[in-house]
């Protein structure tokens, strides 16, 4: 790699590339890399587990007249009127075909640009560049998640009890009485109760709320699961036939709240025009890098999400 040529490369390649030359960028001993004190827990994004991203290329973009911003137009399944019973000799009702579409816009998410004199970099025993770049990727995933939760809440009408315009149903409901087996089962009825009759495919819950599940007794969850809870605590659990994704992002997924999502094909689309990428440049004794990605995602079907807030009995 040229010393002064900017290059976009993967996260792992960044490390390898910088280390491949011998201009003061000496790799610390491997045993030192992980010996530092963490101050904040980070995790991968949950959006990518709810709606797996689909990589696209320029060929997939739909060209517009009035803008050169990237756009993809998605088609939706058309609604169909119900069949009716008629007496003999009756003509069928007419319906001119019109389809439904929605646009997926793309935006960029990027980290801050980190820069440092390589001589000062030598004084860190941990690989601070690797730590910063890893955390930057996770921070970008958090931004994705944040946008997803905002979009979900907006799709659900913005508040508990709101009627979703497109479905005519209340899909953000308060369930009184806390997190009991009966109440969680009750919350599972929200999404299938819309006219689309979609089933819950996954639930999203935070790491505080999931601990209430651990309180369930053997007679509530059954012997094997109760024993598993007792011995191993929680993990990504299959409960009530759906996958519960557990997140530590309590600022996005509040305690005592569960989001439910339908299968991706009923929910929307998540596309990566340029997936998470590390840009690195080195000029003489200065090194700089930042991460960025270009993504587009949209909830194409508001019937594919629901939210339950478990509130105490008044």
């Amino acid at each position: 790699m040229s010393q002064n040529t900017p290059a976009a490369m993967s996260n792992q390649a960044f490390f390898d590339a910088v280390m491949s030359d011998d201009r003061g960028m000496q790799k610390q001993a491997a045993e030192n890399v992980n010996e530092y004190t963490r101050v904040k827990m980070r995790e991968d994004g949950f959006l990518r587990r709810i709606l797996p991203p689909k990589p696209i290329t320029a060929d997939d973009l739909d060209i517009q007249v009035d803008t050169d911003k990237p756009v993809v137009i998605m088609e939706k399944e058309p609604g169909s009127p119900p069949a009716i019973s008629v007496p003999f000799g009756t003509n069928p009702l007419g319906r001119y075909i019109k389809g439904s579409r929605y646009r997926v816009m793309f935006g960029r998410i990027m980290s801050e640009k980190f820069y440092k004199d390589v001589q000062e970099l030598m004084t860190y025993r941990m690989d601070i560049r690797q730590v910063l770049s890893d955390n930057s990727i996770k921070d970008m995933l958090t931004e994705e998640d944040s946008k997803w939760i905002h979009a979900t809440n907006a799709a659900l009408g913005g508040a508990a009890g709101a009627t979703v315009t497109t479905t005519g149903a209340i899909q953000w409901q308060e369930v009184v009485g806390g997190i009991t087996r009966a109440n969680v089962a009750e919350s599972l009825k929200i999404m299938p109760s819309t006219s689309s009759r979609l089933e819950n495919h996954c639930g999203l819950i935070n790491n505080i709320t999931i601990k209430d599940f651990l309180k369930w007794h053997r007679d509530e969850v059954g012997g094997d699961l109760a024993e598993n809870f007792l011995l191993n605590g929680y993990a990504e659990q299959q409960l009530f036939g759906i996958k519960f994704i557990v997140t530590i992002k309590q600022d996005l997924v509040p305690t005592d709240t569960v989001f439910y999502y339908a299968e991706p094909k009923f929910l929307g689309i998540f596309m990566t025009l340029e997936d998470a990428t590390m840009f690195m440049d080195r000029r003489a004794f200065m090194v700089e890098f930042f991460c960025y990605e270009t993504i587009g995602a949209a909830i194409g079907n508001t019937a594919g999400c629901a939210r339950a807030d478990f509130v105490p009995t008044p």
Partner: protein
Amino acid sequence: MSTPAQMFDHELNGVKGFQPAMPWIVDKAVDLDSAVTPGSVKAGMVMHQDPTSKKFKLGAGVISATVAQMTYFVFQNGTDFDVIGDDFNLVGASSGGQVGRVMGVASNQAAELETTEFETGTYTPGKLLIAGADGKLENYASGAAILLGVVTDGVAVSEHSNGINVLRFHSIWHPLFA
């Protein structure tokens, strides 16, 4: 028949010194203030950070004896797809909330610019420019104001269309107090 909107109907173009995302450019990406209608924000307009909300509003803001807002030339339209999205898209400052975030170039940088957003008038070289409350450039007349441009070549026809004029000027930032 009508002419469809084009991407160059409103624009900020860097003639010298300004090129988006270059290391020497001091830009700022800020949410639009809730009082600003996204459709009223056009590329090439002037915006400032509201002192209370810290979000972008059109124009140069209020100047007082001790306060003058930094002004920015906006690079995107307020309704561009990377600024604000259709419902439930994940672009913009707050998806679903329909809050747009635009990028502006600080006017205190040395750059020669072209903008489509200016009031009708006579713009001869050396004329000092200010921004109206709608974010469009206009000639300075008198009184307290933030000077944010000096006319260089004046008005010219856009390279993209005979029906569009651009004003070419040099960016500055100089508050004049009453």
